């Protein structure tokens, strides 16, 4: 039990970061299908820079900034050149995977010498408590940061001027223009933020546990993050809850396999859950709109 919770907490971190980024982007009016590619980009940048500098902080900073910049280019294609966000996103994912695969020259894995990994923090006192210790102690700082980002995002959206403007930019119709806001620039900013979050998520994935890069290491987490903020209807706490549940699925998989359940089926659950949630939401909306 304790092991599962500890594993789930670790698995939740990249999902949570990427989902929060996607959530901000969604609130700004863009569905970001490219989280997967940006996580992959963040992972490789983190490994390369961490190995070069010997500093995991520098690695994560490179991952964050690099993916944020990729997010800017991606955003400009959508907001300024009128690209369809879904197709551009799918294309972006293929392009990034292709570029990295090309650079690695079918090695698939990149493990340079001297990669600095993210240290774990033990919290004395708490680490001895069952359950709570498994969840709270012996985690990397990015994990704490990711969970702190949840209330921060909620506060940002609800109580700050920038958050209000972001929501206006993403609202249907011309409300942002009516308020005299530059909706496109705000949308760009939210896509840059999504890139930064997803890049950090990828960096944590690469430097948090193993300190290497593998072509398959993101393994659909960008899409699970997408599923999470759709599940949470782009609200921070429900989205975080979805990430926790999906991470728990992930951690339980190995245990379920021992019990004879199939990992392949368990791995489809997040995606299936999203379709179910979308359906329920649609039914509720229809009921509400139907005349009594």
């Amino acid at each position: 039990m304790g092991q599962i919770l500890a594993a789930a907490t670790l698995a939740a971190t990249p999902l949570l970061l990427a989902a929060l980024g996607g959530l901000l982007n969604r609130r700004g009016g863009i569905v970001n299908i490219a989280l997967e590619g940006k996580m992959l980009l963040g992972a490789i940048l983190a490994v390369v820079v961490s190995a070069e500098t010997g500093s995991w902080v520098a690695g994560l900073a490179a991952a964050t900034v690099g993916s944020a910049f990729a997010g800017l280019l991606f955003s400009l294609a959508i907001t300024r050149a009128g690209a369809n966000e879904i197709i551009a996103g799918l294309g972006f994912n293929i392009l990034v995977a292709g570029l990295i695969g090309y650079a690695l020259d079918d090695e698939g894995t990149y493990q340079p010498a001297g990669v600095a990994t993210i240290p774990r923090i033990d919290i004395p006192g708490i680490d001895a408590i069952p359950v709570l210790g498994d969840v709270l102690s012996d985690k990397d700082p990015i994990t704490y940061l990711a969970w702190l980002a949840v209330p921060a995002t909620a506060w940002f959206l609800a109580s700050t001027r920038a958050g209000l403007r972001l929501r206006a930019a993403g609202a249907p119709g011309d409300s942002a223009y009516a308020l005299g806001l530059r909706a496109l620039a705000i949308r760009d900013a939210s896509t840059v933020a999504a890139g930064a979050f997803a890049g950090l998520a990828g960096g944590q994935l690469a430097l948090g546990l193993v300190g290497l890069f593998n072509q398959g290491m993101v393994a659909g987490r960008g899409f699970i993050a997408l599923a999470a903020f759709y599940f949470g209807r782009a609200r921070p706490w429900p989205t975080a809850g979805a990430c926790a549940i999906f991470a728990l699925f992930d951690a339980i998989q190995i245990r379920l396999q021992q019990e004879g359940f199939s990992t392949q089926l368990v791995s489809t659950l997040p995606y299936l859950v999203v379709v179910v949630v979308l359906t329920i939401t649609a039914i509720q909306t229809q009921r509400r709109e139907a005349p009594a």
Partner: protein
Amino acid sequence: MAAADVPAVRPGAPPGSALAGALRSVGMSLLPVAAAFVVGAVVLAVTGWDPISVYRVMAREAFGSTARVESTLAAATPLLFAGLATAIAFRGGVFNIGVDGCFVLGGLAAAWLGAALTGLPGWLLIPVCVLAGMITGAVWSAPPAFLRVRLGVDEVVSTLMLNFVAIGLASWIVNTLLLAQGTANSASSPVAPQAELPGLGGDVTLGLVIALVGVVFYGVWTRWSASGYELRMTGLNPAFAQTAGISVPRVVFQAMLWSGLVAGAGGAAHALGVVHRFVDGFSPGYGFTGIAIALLARNGAVGIVLASILFGALASAGATVQLFSDIPLDIVDVLQGTIMVFAAVQVVDLRRRIRRQAA
């Protein structure tokens, strides 16, 4: 448009010049391809390759001999199905990105029956397997179609998510129910010899013919039939189509089912013609290449064939180039991704936008 701008127009051609329109759409399709080759050239040059000579080798490896052309056509076959399946949905304004899932499950169904019904003769077994693939594909796209039409659930997200479900489901089935005796690696038993699609030289199989027949049907259907007209109208302007008496929900629902059916047929043809069984990783993202193809083709029948051959050529040439000159096959993904990003940019919109900003 001034009359002088219009090149010699065939008498009886509709006003506005079909030829000029065709030229413009060809130009708009070539733009993303050109952009992709420029990006690819930069990548190659940065890594120390001469882009021109690499492209020359690729062209030779794709089309240089009968054997290479056959290899290109074989690689283009699953892409024709995927491109056609995507185009059917896009034509009707339905953003179906679930073609990959339908392809995978259609292939699974065909591989299963092809290995199970060994008593049937080939002339019966092949149609049965392909039909099973079609039905499976159509059935798999029915739930998102229903959700879109009845409840207004965004088909982009539902079909994207169902792709992952399809792949996981197929993987589970092949690892439990259909696992071949004595294989450890996620493969079903090979299909009966008479279930394998007849070859037409090289790696080309009857699958190519089936795909081309499908594309021709599609071209004729969308251009000259009443229901094809309804599909186009719905795609162009659903509100207008509804006002004109077209049942938009029915058209959308049918478009998604046809899309799934064609994708399922593609999976069946791939299973019977190429893989001869079902394996994990059955589709290396054919459905997503299909999106790029439908975009480049602007959903036109001729364009689907040309774009499929382009991507087939890239895939087959990329594989041999990797073999002989050490250039990673991933360069093909770089080209495909760039084509998608640039094809997503609406050039017409861009020009209109610039004009509006200038005004």
